């Protein structure tokens, strides 16, 4: 431990200072309130995990009954269940590591009508506290369009006209109709959905040459998790894949795939690739960080207001 005597002295001073405050003003009653708040959060987390736990138990029971007559099937199903559990644990590890501010290269392959595809290269910034910002080149590629938000809110700064902000449901819905399903820009939401609605399996990280090139040896040592949608709901991606760094739990690559009829439009494939730590300041993750103070901001509270919004970018 390489601290100078002066540094140690300063740290000791802070330490004694804190202990003296604690000694004269114990925080027990405040601690209880804090604990209740934590307990409520943990309860919510437990509930989101519970259905999966029940599913495991049900599967195991069902397998046990079938085993009497179909041993081969039992072996196969147990393998799948264990695969799911291991992959689930890997996703949870990734979830716990999401605190790191990170920047991703973000490639969107969109399907236009008549089966045409279009690729858009954007950047995604995560602040590690649940906020994201996308630097989108704009639908016409003239000037960047900024999209940001967190689990509850969204904002958009177009090239021209007023910026808009509002709740995740309203603005998120508006973005989704313009082929940007913003929940998948919020890593926490992606991980939550992956755990809840997808059958998970662990794959060999370096095996698929379509997804991992020889120039990407860092991915070969990751844990690779693939989630396949359990029920075919047309608005959800059919698969989500994660490459999770073994040591840190960091998501090094995320691939989200949708299946579409040729006549439909919408996202086909999104690929996020970790570029490195994000060193953006706090205000970069706010709407105010991307507009002049004089610029008009529409605070959208109702669906009706969105009908009057035309974003030009």
């Amino acid at each position: 431990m390489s601290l100078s005597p002066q540094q140690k002295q300063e740290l000791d001073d802070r330490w004694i200072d804190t202990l003296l405050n604690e000694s004269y003003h114990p925080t027990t009653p405040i601690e209880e309130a804090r604990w209740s708040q934590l307990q409520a959060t943990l309860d919510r987390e437990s509930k989101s995990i519970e259905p999966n736990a029940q599913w495991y138990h049900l599967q195991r029971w069902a397998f046990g009954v079938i085993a009497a007559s179909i041993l081969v099937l039992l072996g196969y199903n147990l393998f799948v269940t264990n695969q799911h559990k291991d992959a689930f644990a890997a996703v949870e590890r990734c979830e716990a590591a999401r605190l790191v501010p990170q920047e991703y290269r973000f490639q969107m392959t969109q399907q236009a009508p008549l089966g045409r595809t279009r690729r858009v290269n954007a950047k995604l910034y995560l602040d590690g506290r649940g906020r994201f910002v996308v630097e989108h080149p704009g639908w016409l590629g003239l000037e960047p369009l900024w999209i940001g938000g967190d689990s509850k809110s969204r904002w958009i700064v177009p090239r021209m006209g007023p910026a808009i902000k509002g709740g995740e449901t309203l603005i998120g819905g508006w973005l989704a109709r313009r082929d940007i399903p913003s929940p998948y820009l919020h890593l926490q939401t992606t991980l939550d959905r992956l755990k809840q609605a997808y059958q998970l399996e662990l794959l060999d990280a370096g095996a698929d040459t379509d997804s991992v090139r020889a120039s990407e040896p860092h991915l070969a040592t990751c844990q690779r998790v693939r989630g396949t949608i359990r029920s075919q709901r047309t608005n959800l991606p059919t698969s989500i894949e994660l490459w999770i760094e073994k040591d840190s739990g960091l998501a090094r690559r995320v691939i989200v795939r949708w299946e579409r009829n040729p006549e439909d439009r919408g996202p086909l494939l999104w690929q996020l690739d970790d570029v490195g730590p994000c060193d953006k300041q706090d205000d970069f993750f706010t709407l105010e960080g991307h507009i002049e103070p004089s610029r008009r901001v529409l605070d959208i509270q109702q669906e009706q207001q969105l009908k009057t919004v035309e974003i030009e970018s």
Partner: protein
Amino acid sequence: MESRDLFEILAREQAPALRSFLRAAGCDHATADDVWQETMLIAWRRIDEFDRSRPFGPWLRGIASRVLMGVRRKQAKLELIGDENSLEYLNRRMHQIEQLPGDTLDEKLHALRDCITLLPAHERECVELRYQQDLMPQGIGERIGSSVEAVKKRLVRAKQHLLECLERKVSADVRYPV
């Protein structure tokens, strides 16, 4: 015992010490609350990785240190301690307190209260006015008829004496090198 039950017991026991650790690291009340919550959530998710043969406090504060370093990276203007060595040093200091007799942090701090009674009267008076009555050095100076500088020096000396006294008490139980 199930891991989650174990978590609740250990985390409740360690919650006040974690809070003190965060305050010593320079967190204001709001930041300490945020980091405290985040640390507990991560610890809850990772409780299966906790080695039960080792003490829980340093493990929990190790998680808190990583959270703090993340906060510090993002908000450089916050006066937080964000380097690993300093946080590790504070973690060990907190672990020293955990070696003292008592079940709760408040009980363990009886050792510090004993040390306060051993201070010279003029230093003890300053400590009580500063920490019990929350007076700033100027207010203390006005109360006892001393200059602000003299009060600050007295507080520094008092804290040095308290540190030495606490170290003696810790050494009497178990030696944990810093």
